[in-house]
C-alpha cells in the first residue's frame, strides 16, 4: 500500500494550570489519544466547537508544540520534535502572523533565501510568489499595516508556500474575513491545491466552509476525535456536538 504522507499517532497533550494565588496545580487534558492520517493530495477538515483542541492539534502537527505523548511520522519516518521542511501553517490572525516591521518582500523571501531555494533574482522570485496568490507584485514593498485584511491573508499563504511545503495546515485561516474575501481565499486555496498537489489540513468551526473545501472531515469534541466522515455526510452529524 502507498505510505501516508503524514501520520500522527496517539497524540495527547495536557496543560499544567496554576490556579490562583495558592498555586494549586491542576492539569487540563487538551488532547486525549488522537491519531490522524493524511494521504498525499488529500484535503481534510477538522471541525469542533471552540476549546475542543483543534488549535492544539494543529500546533503539534506542525511541530510548534511538543506533545505530552505520541509520535509524528512523515512518509513512514518518525519525526523528531520541532518544525519540518514539508509542513507549513497559515494562521488565523494574519495581522499578528506577519512581522509588522518587515516588508512583504522580506516576509516572503527571507526563509527561501536562507534555505537556498531562490535560484534566480529575488525580486523575480517574490513576484512569482505574489502572482500565484493573486497579489500585484507592486505590493512587495509594502508593510503589513498597509494591506487590507484579504491581502494580508494572501501574503500569509504566499509566505507558507514559498518554501515549497507538501502539507499546509490552515487554522481558522478565513474565520476573520468578510464573506466576499473569505470566498476569494477559499477559491485560492482550492486552486493552489490543484496546481501544486498540496495536502491540506483545514481547521474551522464553520461546517459550511469545511464541507466546501474538504473531502474528509474529522470531528473533535473535548480533545478527542469523535467521528471521521466524508464531507457529504457532514450535514447529518448530530448537532448536539456543537451545543454544550
Amino acid at each position, binding site marked *: 500500500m502507498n505510505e501516508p504522507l503524514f501520520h500522527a499517532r496517539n497524540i495527547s497533550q495536557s496543560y499544567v494550570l496554576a490556579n490562583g494565588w495558592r498555586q494549586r496545580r491542576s492539569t487540563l487534558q487538551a488532547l486525549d489519544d488522537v491519531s490522524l492520517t493524511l494521504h498525499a493530495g488529500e484535503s481534510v477538515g477538522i471541525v469542533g*466547537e*471552540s476549546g475542543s483542541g483543534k488549535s492544539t492539534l494543529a500546533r503539534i502537527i506542525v511541530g510548534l508544540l511538543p506533545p505530552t505523548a505520541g509520535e509524528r511520522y512523515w512518509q513512514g519516518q518518525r519525526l523528531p520534535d520541532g518544525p519540518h521542511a514539508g509542513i507549513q501553517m497559515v494562521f488565523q490572525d494574519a495581522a499578528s502572523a506577519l512581522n509588522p516591521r518587515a516588508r512583504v518582500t522580506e516576509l516572503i523571501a527571507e526563509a527561501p533565501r536562507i534555505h537556498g531555494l531562490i535560484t534566480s533574482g529575488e525580486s523575480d522570485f517574490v513576484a512569482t510568489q505574489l502572482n500565484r496568490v493573486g497579489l500585484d507584485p507592486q505590493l512587495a514593498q509594502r508593510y503589513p499595516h498597509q494591506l487590507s*485584511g484579504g491581502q494580508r491573508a494572501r501574503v500569509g499563504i504566499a509566505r507558507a508556500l514559498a518554501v515549497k511545503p507538501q502539507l499546509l495546515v490552515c487554522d481558522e485561516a478565513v474565520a476573520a474575513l468578510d*464573506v*466576499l474575501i473569505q*470566498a*476569494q481565499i477559499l477559491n485560492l486555496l482550492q486552486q493552489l491545491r490543484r496546481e501544486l498537489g498540496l495536502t491540506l489540513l483545514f481547521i474551522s468551526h464553520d461546517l*459550511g466552509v469545511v*464541507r*466546501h473545501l474538504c473531502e474528509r472531515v474529522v470531528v473533535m469534541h473535548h480533545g478527542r476525535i469523535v467521528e471521521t466522515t466524508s464531507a457529504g455526510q457532514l450535514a447529518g452529524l448530530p448537532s448536539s456536538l456543537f451545543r454544550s
Partner: protein
Amino acid sequence: MSVLDVKDLTIHIGDTKSPAHAVDSVSLHIERGEVVALVGESGSGKTLTGLAIAGLLDPPLRRVGGEITLLGENLSALPESQLRRRRGDRLAMVFQDPMATLNPVLRIETQLVETIRAHRNVGRNAARDEALAMLDEVGITLPAQRLRAYPHELSGGMRQRVAIGAALINRPALLIADEPTTALDVTLQAQILALIDQYRRDHGTAVLWITHDLGVAAGFADRVLVMYAGQIVESGPCARVLQAPAHPYTAALLGAIPGSVPPGTPLATLPGQPPGLSPPPEGCRFRARCPRAAAACIAAPPQVATGEARTVRCFFPLVTPP
C-alpha cells in the same frame, strides 16, 4: 409610532475640505419588538450608523445631516452632548468587545447597581435584586456569585452576557447591538442570539442588530438592511431579500457563502474592493465591481420601493417591481 425613525443620516469624517462621506443618507425605522439587521462588509459604515443613533460620535466623526426620532421625539435639534443624556434610558448599545461597556476595576454588582441608580430612583437593595434578576435573565449560572466577580474573572461569553445585561437593565426601548457575537464561537453565538430573541419577545424591545454575517441575519432578523460604502443599497423582509435579492451586491454576498455552490466548485466573488469615500465615486458606488453595470449607472441611483416593503438602490435590480 416607530421606536426609531432615522431620516437621511449623513456622517463625514475629517476636515471640512475633503471629508470622507462615510455614511450617506441612511434612512431606517424600527418598530416595537422588531429585529432589524444592518449587514455589510467591514468598513461599510455600520458602526458609525449605530454610534450616531446612540449619540456617541466623537470628532473626527461628524453628523452633518439627518433626523433621528426616538419614540416620537425629534432629537436632531439637540447638540450631541445633550442627546447622550436624553437617549440614555431609552436606548442602549452593546459592542463587539464587552470591555467597551464593562469597567475592569469594578465588581459586576457595582456596575449594574450604579447603572440602575444613575437613571432611576431605586434603593440600593432593590437595585441589587434587579441586577441579580438580570444576570439570571441573560443566562448567567450562579448569578449571586458572579455579581461579586470582576469582569476579568469571567469567560468571554459570560462577559458579553453581562455587557448585554448591563445594556438591558434599564429596560431600553431600543437595543443597538454592534457585532456582539463576532468574537464568540458558533455555540455561544447561537446562545446569545436566542437570548436576545427571547428578551425582545418578552419585553417588546426593538433591536438594531449590526453584523457582517448574512447567515446571522437570516435566522434572526425580521428585516434586513444591506449597506455598501456608506449607503443602504437594499432593504426588506429578511426572508424575501435572502431568497430573491434585488441588488447585485446582495446577490454577490449570498453567492459567496460556502454551500451556495456544489462543494469543490469556485465560489462567486467580486473583483476589486469597496471604493474610497473622500470623495465618493460619482454615480453608483458599486459600479466598479458590479456585474450589471451599464452606462446609466454613471448617475447615482435613487433608493426606490419595489413592493413587498422592499427598497433597492439600483437602476437594474434583479427583482423587478410587480
